[in-house]
């Protein structure tokens, strides 16, 4: 069995587990919806509709949702000792990392789509460049899992894991947050070249952390 197939098997396992017990997805959807609503109320209707504020609120909500989903995924593995079985297999550590990254990306796309639709509906946002916005949203979502899974693996079986993962991952994710927020704001206001440039930066960010993750993270999986 090659590495890609092993990773996809882990992905499928993650997605089946989430489908059977969608508590992670339900928590993430509720959380993002509530965060968008609360932050919009906090900023007030006028400011919350501004492109950069709306984008920032959306991406912060998605960022927190990614941490929640990853924590739930690793919790499930630790509860039933599934993680030990996976890493015992040949190439299991690489497959675990890659599979979790792909699965988290897929689930996060659902969460981001729901949060995005909710933001557009709630704030009555005018989207100047929908295609560019979709591209930035896709690049922004895909950029999150490599870093979140890296930090979740590092913090696995560490005391106060739930606090450690955000503390470690948020500083690393600042370039993602800035690029995704600026890119989405550019797409909302009609600045196509800027949106594409930010999407390119997000792609480069994803590539760097995905390669780093695949190279080094398997060594940290216990």
């Amino acid at each position: 069995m090659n590495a890609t197939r092993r990773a996809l098997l882990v992905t499928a396992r993650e997605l089946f587990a989430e489908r059977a017990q969608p508590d992670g997805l339900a928590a993430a959807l509720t959380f993002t919806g509530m965060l968008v609503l609360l932050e919009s109320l906090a900023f007030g209707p006028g400011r919350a509709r501004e492109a950069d504020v709306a984008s920032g609120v959306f991406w912060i909500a998605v960022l927190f949702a990614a941490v929640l989903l990853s924590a739930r995924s690793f919790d499930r593995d630790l509860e039933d000792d599934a993680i030990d079985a996976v890493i015992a297999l040949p190439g299991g550590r690489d497959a675990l990392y890659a599979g979790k990254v792909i699965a988290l990306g897929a689930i996060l796309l659902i969460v981001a789509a729901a949060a995005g639709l909710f933001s557009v509906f709630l704030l009555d946002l005018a989207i100047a460049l929908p295609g560019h916005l979709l591209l930035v949203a896709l690049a922004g979502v895909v950029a999150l899992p490599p870093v979140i899974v890296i930090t979740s693996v590092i913090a696995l079986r560490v005391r106060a894991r739930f606090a450690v993962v955000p503390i470690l991952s948020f500083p690393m994710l600042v370039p993602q947050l800035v690029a995704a927020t600026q890119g989405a704001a550019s797409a909302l206001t009609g600045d196509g070249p800027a949106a594409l440039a930010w999407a390119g930066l997000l792609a480069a960010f994803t590539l760097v952390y995905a390669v780093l993750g695949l190279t080094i993270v398997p060594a940290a999986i216990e």
Partner: protein
Amino acid sequence: MIKTTTAPFPTIRLRPWLGITATAAAILASWMGLVWAPTDAVQGDVYRVIYVHVPTAWLAYLAFVIVFLASVGWLWTRRPWFDALAVASAEIGVLFTGLFIVAGSIWAKPTWGVWWTWDPRLVTTAIMFLMYLGYLLLRSLSTDFERRATRAAVLGVIAVVDIPIVHLSVLWMNSVHQLPTVARIGAGPALDAQMGMTLGVSVIAFTLVYLALLVERMELERRRQARVLEVRS
């Protein structure tokens, strides 16, 4: 299996001399920075913060690059010496990054009019500071020696990505921070010769202080590792 019992910890014989040399160099750098170097025509004496700000910036970068190299060394060889080097350098790096931010803030108030501004260089430096605080936090939460070293090493390798982002942020984004003055691509330093020499001596003095602290901290770590192994055996 950890090789600590069979791999002796290298003894550093330069310890006392390093401390004496670092102290002498720090005194010389202080005299040059406060007395010998000329007053700046535009900023007056305020600019003298540069003799602390730039060396601490250099040491912040150096310390975290050493953390990266030591982390690779640990992951490659599993020799505890590398883990001791990584933790020592990370702690000193956090200290110097803190001083770097404070010195920058002291310089910013009279020149920019504010202690802090949301400038890319400042923000990315603060992020680097938080990232390595997270590194130390992660170490403090792990009890098993080998697991702690491996987790920290992985983070030490990944976190190094932030260093070029900090240094190049003033070129990539609109920034009120001045562009690089000494390490300029394709050009010499944009600094008066006397000021440049003082800055050079300051950088050397701070580097010696870093090395002296590093050696002392590694010795503490060596003793701690020895105690852990004693208990284990």
